[in-house]
């Protein structure tokens, strides 16, 4: 542990954090039946992706400095954040509408398209 504390971290460590967030989001999306729980899973997935973008944007985190994404990575992360906010707003509106019509937010109940 102390050994690790003296070492610099690299992009790979950030990628690991991103991977854990991503996988947690995926499991959250598959296991929760509440529509808002699924939405939270999506937020986690998007954040995992964002961590990767930020990690790749910083040249000081890697040995091959020139290949870092630089500002592009950060701009993409910003677009992800903004679009996630928009997505959450629309998803929430749909969920509220669904709740108004069905009195529940259980995604398994949304099976009317089966006919």
């Amino acid at each position, binding site marked *: 542990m102390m050994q690790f504390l003296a070492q610099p971290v690299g992009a790979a460590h950030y990628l690991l954090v991103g991977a854990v967030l991503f996988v947690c989001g995926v499991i959250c999306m598959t296991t929760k039946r509440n529509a808002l729980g699924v939405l939270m899973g999506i937020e986690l997935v998007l954040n995992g992706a964002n961590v990767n973008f930020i990690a790749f944007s910083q*040249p*000081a985190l890697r040995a091959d400095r020139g290949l870092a994404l630089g*500002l592009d990575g950060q701009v993409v992360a910003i677009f992800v954040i903004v679009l996630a*906010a928009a997505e959450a*707003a629309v998803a*929430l*509106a749909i969920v509220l509408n669904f709740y108004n019509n069905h009195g529940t937010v259980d995604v398994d109940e949304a099976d009317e398209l089966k006919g």
Partner: protein
Amino acid sequence: MAEFFSTYLPSWLAQLVTGLIQCVILLHVPLVGAMFFVWVERKAAARIQDRLGPTRVGGMFGWLQLLADGLKLLTKEDLRPQEADAMLFRLAPYVGFCASFTVFLALPFSDGWVVQWLDVGVFFILAVLGLEVFGVILAGWASASKWSLFGAMREAAQVVSYEVPLGMCVVVPVMIAGTMDLVAIGRMQEGLFTNWFIFHDPFTFVIFFVYFTCGIASVNRAPFDLAEAESELVAGFHTEYSGFRWLIFYMAEYGSMFIVSGLAAILFFGGWNGPIPLADLLGLTDANGELAGYLGRFLGMLNFVFKSVLGVTVMIWVRWTVPRLRIDQVMTMCLKYCTPIAAVMFLGATLWTYTFPGGVTGLRGTPYGTVRGVSAQRVELSDLTPATEDAEGAAGEGSDNKPAEEHAGDVAAAAADGEAAAASTPSGPLSIATFASSRARSR
């Protein structure tokens, strides 16, 4: 300070000790500040209502009343409703307080006297200040009381809505300054009080009042304290809280009031620069030695704290003068008045700076030169990360750089747009009506 300690301690311990000392000093701002403001509030409220207020404790003016209040609250029993969600109920006050306290990290108290010098200082402060609402929402939810829940719902609707005009108001001085760095913004307003941004043009003068209104709303003070409206909701979100946890809520509230006034002081009233450059006249600058510079900064800090306290006092004055609004009036105020006014003022200020880059008289030194100085200084320290290289590139462009500088403001505006999109979905009063009916249905 870290260098001082590292002569006696190993370097990692020195860093740790330095950080802890800064934290402890900073922690005293909300804590002592809250105690002082409680006393001020009691005295001011009493005077406005033609009473005397506390007079006995501690002799003159009842100045020890705050200590008595604190002791009373600390010795009260820490109650918890049986139905409450225990973990969230216990944690909620600390969430609010942490958010309020974290803001102080980025708030400069004087020229360069800031714990963490952030390039996005204004943005960071607004962002973290917005997190305080979670304390209230979670407290209201976890209390398992309908009054608390209604208070929390109102608070959520109100704070999310008011973040939009608040952000737009803040963008105006940021756009004029061309940076979100609070230290740089403060430095730009050096000199006579005519250099303060509130006197920059008519639009900033108007927008300050919009900012202050939205600031009062975003920290939940009367007349916008719908979340704790005692005439309707017992005590709103903190109905079920007592003793120490209740005290924490109050400290967070007074801390936020100080932050909103402090931000106003830096953005509109020159921050640590007095109405006349007294420190310069007395020769208290870095040019005359380290001690003189230190004293000058200390004078600046007194200036800043005085302005912030003045702001808080005005908030207290407003609280005891203006009657509380209804929730629909609060929402109307935000969406129909504050946001459009802020948008028009933003446009006006943009056109004004475009038309009169050096002020109407042309005598005002262009603030952009100051930014150049700051960013160039910081670039010299390192040109390693692409970030600082960017700043260098921006600095290198020279004279035609003014429009480019304004874009920082545009980005913040875009952020505010995103916020607007996110925020305006649950339109306040309607949602609460829906909510009320849904709660009623579920019983």
